[in-house]
């Protein structure tokens, strides 16, 4: 295909604003898929979890053959972007592979925090942006208000904003026309040595690691020896091709084209998103800019409830990492829980996905400790250490200073929630940065319309990551009746008065229940935590004291009273089999718990810290 007839673009949208539906429409209109919606959906969201959570976890690309109004044939490459802020690096690499972006905004919900963040990234990459107000057919839609919001916030004129209903197919042909008209064809140097941007990769058990690439300069040819520039390893282009949406092998991917390269690699970690593919014989001088190592931000311990599941857990983690280069893990041993792994994730959603896949796909009973951030600890002897497990914090006498990661967060919400958001954030040690109205007074359409007629604000704060790890997003949603959206990015490290809170069960410290908390909260949290644990730890055959200690001093105590009654009333009509089943269920319940000393502790207890109430 002539380079002038190639268009590389992506869709930027908040969760549920209609990205998948619009992509399905594009596929349909270019004749790639016909038939039921279910079939179409499966094209882009191939992981069950993605469909269930309504987010696209891994980016993929599809090539759409398109006959435009001018009668010419075009090659449109639609690159899918992950829809969650945990994957913002992956989003930035997907955007870097494009020249244009379709910005989709829900006609009843308006612009959300993450949408703005992604638009800014798109602007940094000089992408042509095609704004679309979607779901205009829905009740409660206020397309004009949302259109003017887009104009105000991002800077368009009203006639540039398209109105559509992807579900009904309204306005979607116009979007494809606009892509052809407004998105510039790829530039790049055909004669220069190959540089192809890896914007996604996945492991395929037949072909090894598949890299999804955008050729920036030069071209890739089948069978050529290639080099991953950042990973600094040699590979061979075993198979190359494009996705339409299934793989269609080709001999060559030319400058500006998007497609896949089967690398034969066994480890997806060697084919990291953002890396540059070049020719081994004629390498490029410089890799493409923007490459970053995966930086886990959130950590938790993963322990098998049954000690003999350690091997299977390791295998499962290794298999997961084949397809998830951002997942890190290393063995650790807890005094209370025995051998397990310390895992690092990009963020909380990433953590949940990994844990759910381990349990669902590998049928493992896991014990997951509460998530932690990475602390930088300066010791009195001058040594600096980094810890991602509260249990590893040295005793107070050896600690000079503890620094924790801070985030910049942006909350977009109707202005009547400013007070609530402010309260939530400051209650969690957040510090106000700035506030901006997203829309002028003049564009208010309808005083009564909560969705679109109200003034929306963008609030920016600095806040410790540890404070938003747990239930922050849920709280934000419930305090704003679901109208607030959140975006966050790492800001800096800052020293704080932090202390370790230890929990003792039956007089034994349980390292996996330790947490690091701000001194101001330590006592109150200790008290709450032992109360929660008293409810969560089932009654045993003896009294179990539960204590919280700060700096070696007990600050709270509760007792789980010994169980007094647990016996089946009768075995009715000789139904021994059923009676046995009931007992088996009880036995299985016990097995799912972790024995710490001689106390059986259920998984929920290890997550109790997640449900601690804050001041807000």
């Amino acid at each position: 295909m002539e380079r002038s007839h190639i268009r590389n673009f992506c869709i930027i949208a908040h969760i549920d604003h209609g990205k998948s539906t619009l992509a399905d429409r594009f596929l349909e209109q270019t004749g790639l898929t016909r038939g039921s919606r279910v079939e179409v959906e499966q094209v882009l969201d191939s992981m069950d979890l993605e469909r269930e959570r309504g987010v696209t976890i891994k980016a993929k690309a599809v090539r759409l053959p398109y006959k435009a109004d001018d009668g010419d044939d075009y090659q449109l490459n639609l690159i899918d972007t992950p829809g969650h802020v945990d994957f913002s690096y992956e989003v930035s690499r997907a955007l870097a592979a494009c020249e244009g972006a379709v910005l989709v905004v829900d006609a009843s919900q308006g612009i959300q925090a993450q949408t703005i963040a992604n638009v800014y990234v798109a602007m940094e990459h000089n992408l042509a942006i095609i704004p679309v107000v979607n779901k205009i057919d829905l009740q409660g839609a206020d397309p004009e208000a949302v259109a003017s919001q887009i104009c105000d916030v991002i800077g368009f004129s009203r006639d540039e904003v398209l109105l559509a209903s992807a579900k009904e197919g309204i306005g979607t042909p116009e979007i494809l026309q606009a892509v052809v008209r407004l998105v510039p064809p790829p530039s790049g140097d055909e004669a220069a040595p190959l540089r192809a941007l890896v914007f996604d990769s996945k492991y395929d058990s037949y072909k090894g690691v598949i890299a999804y690439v955008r050729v920036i300069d030069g071209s890739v040819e089948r069978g050529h020896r290639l080099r991953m520039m950042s990973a600094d390893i040699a590979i061979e282009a075993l198979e190359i091709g494009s996705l339409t949406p299934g793989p269609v092998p080709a001999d060559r991917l030319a400058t500006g084209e998007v497609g896949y390269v089967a690398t034969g690699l066994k480890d997806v970690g060697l084919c990291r998103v953002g890396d540059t593919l070049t020719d081994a014989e004629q390498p490029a001088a410089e890799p493409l800019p923007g490459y970053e190592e995966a930086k886990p931000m959130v950590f938790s311990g993963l322990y098998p409830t049954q000690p003999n599941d350690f091997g299977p857990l390791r295998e499962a983690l290794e298999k997961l990492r084949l397809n998830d280069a951002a997942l890190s893990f290393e063995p650790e041993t807890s005094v209370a829980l025995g051998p397990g792994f310390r895992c690092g994730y990009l963020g909380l959603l990433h953590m949940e996905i990994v844990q759910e896949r381990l349990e669902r796909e590998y049928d493992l009973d896991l014990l997951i400790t509460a998530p932690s951030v990475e602390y930088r600890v300066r010791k009195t002897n001058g040594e600096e250490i980094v810890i991602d497990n509260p249990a590893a914090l040295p005793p107070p006498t050896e600690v000079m200073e503890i620094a924790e990661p801070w985030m910049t967060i942006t909350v977009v919400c109707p202005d009547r929630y400013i007070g609530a958001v402010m309260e939530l954030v400051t209650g969690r040690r957040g510090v106000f940065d700035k506030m901006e109205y997203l829309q002028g007074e003049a564009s208010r359409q309808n005083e009564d319309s909560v969705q679109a007629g109200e003034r929306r604000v963008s609030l920016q704060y600095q806040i410790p990551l540890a404070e938003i790890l747990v239930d922050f997003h849920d709280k934000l949603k419930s305090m704003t009746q679901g109208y607030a959206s959140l975006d966050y990015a790492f800001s800096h490290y800052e020293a704080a008065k932090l202390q370790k809170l230890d929990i003792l069960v039956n007089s034994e410290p349980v390292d996996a229940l330790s947490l690091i908390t701000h001194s101001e909260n330590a006592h109150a949290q200790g008290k709450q935590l032992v109360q929660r644990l008293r409810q969560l730890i089932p009654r045993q055959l003896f009294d179990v004291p539960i204590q919280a200690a700060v700096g070696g001093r007990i600050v709270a105590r509760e007792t789980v009273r010994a169980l007094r009654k647990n016996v089946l009333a009768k075995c009715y009509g000789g139904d021994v089999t059923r009676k046995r089943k009931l007992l088996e269920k009880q036995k299985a319940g016990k097995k799912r718990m972790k024995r710490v000393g001689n106390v059986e502790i259920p998984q929920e207890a290890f997550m109790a810290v997640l449900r601690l109430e804050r001041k807000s």
Partner: protein
Amino acid sequence: MADTISLYVHIPFCTVKCGYCDFNAYAGSDHLIPAYSQALIKEAQLWRKATENRPVTTVFFGGGTPSLMPVEEMRTVVDGLRSAFDIAADAEFSLEANPNSLDEPYLAGLLGLGFNRLSIGVQSFHDEELKALDREHSASEAGDAFRAARSAGFTNVSIDLMFGLPEQEMSSWQGSIEEALELEPDHISLYALTVEPGTPLARDVARGRTPSPNPDAQADQYEWTEERLEKAAYEHYEISNWAKPGYRCEHNLTYWRCREYLGLGAGAHSYLDGARFAVAALPTKYLELVDESFKSLENGSDTKMRQVVSGESVTPELDMADTLILGLRLIEGVSLPDFHEGFGVDALERFSEELSEPFEFSLVEHVDAHLRLTPKGRLLGNEVFARLLPD
């Protein structure tokens, strides 16, 4: 002497299904009773050959509400049983009954059929508790029914009561026990209310309409009751059962001693020739399957038991666990020499690991060549039983 056997007959009909009940019982299906009686007779015939030479020492009609069956229907069934099985002349012959379906003529009729033991489902002697349990009778009707049974000539009458009802005060429970004792029953069964999944009670508890029974209150009630009934000269012989000397329920002892029994009727369970199995639970399905089996038997084509829909063969390992789990329900416990004779292993050695915590926390004890639950262990039986299950 040939191995004896017990016979259970399930009558799945009720006028009302109580909110806590998860037994195989159906309200509003009384029209099926005549056909059901015929099916029981046919089913008895189906088992005739397999139980030849096995004298029946106990017969137990359970439900449902067996006392819903008119005497004439009952006669048909009992005659059918007698013609199919070798029922001993001195067999214990029990019937479960609801107070509101008992009057003297009916009771006299039952005696005439050979019933010699009556178990009356009183549940409570407080009208408001009976109402909350969906029981159709009143407290005074329960007393009347009991006296009617006595005057009709029943010399072995048992009363069932339920404790640990939501919000039940100790004093209320004590009141029910005292009322029961005044009637001087020969046998008393006391069951803690259990919230069974899928029952209306479970839904009410889940929705917060009814508080869930409090296990500590149940334990208090149980401990008080043990003492009170001992004072009244009842022998505590099984976790939930007390009897005057000589009045233990022989039929139920069959279950706890892990001996064999045959269950007839919809959803009935059997333990026969080393296998545990169950019959189709739905009455209409049961009728249909028994009929098919009976026709095949009659025309000689096969002897398949189509009504048996599930089963398991009891491995020696399972048999050992069952023997202990069921036997430990008895206050006397499990005879270790008998266990050794039956399985060729020493129970304490074979289960030393499983029993280490129960011994450590005084849930079980080794007394007089028996392994038995301690008084504390009686309330924590499941903690012991679950540990004894094979992996």
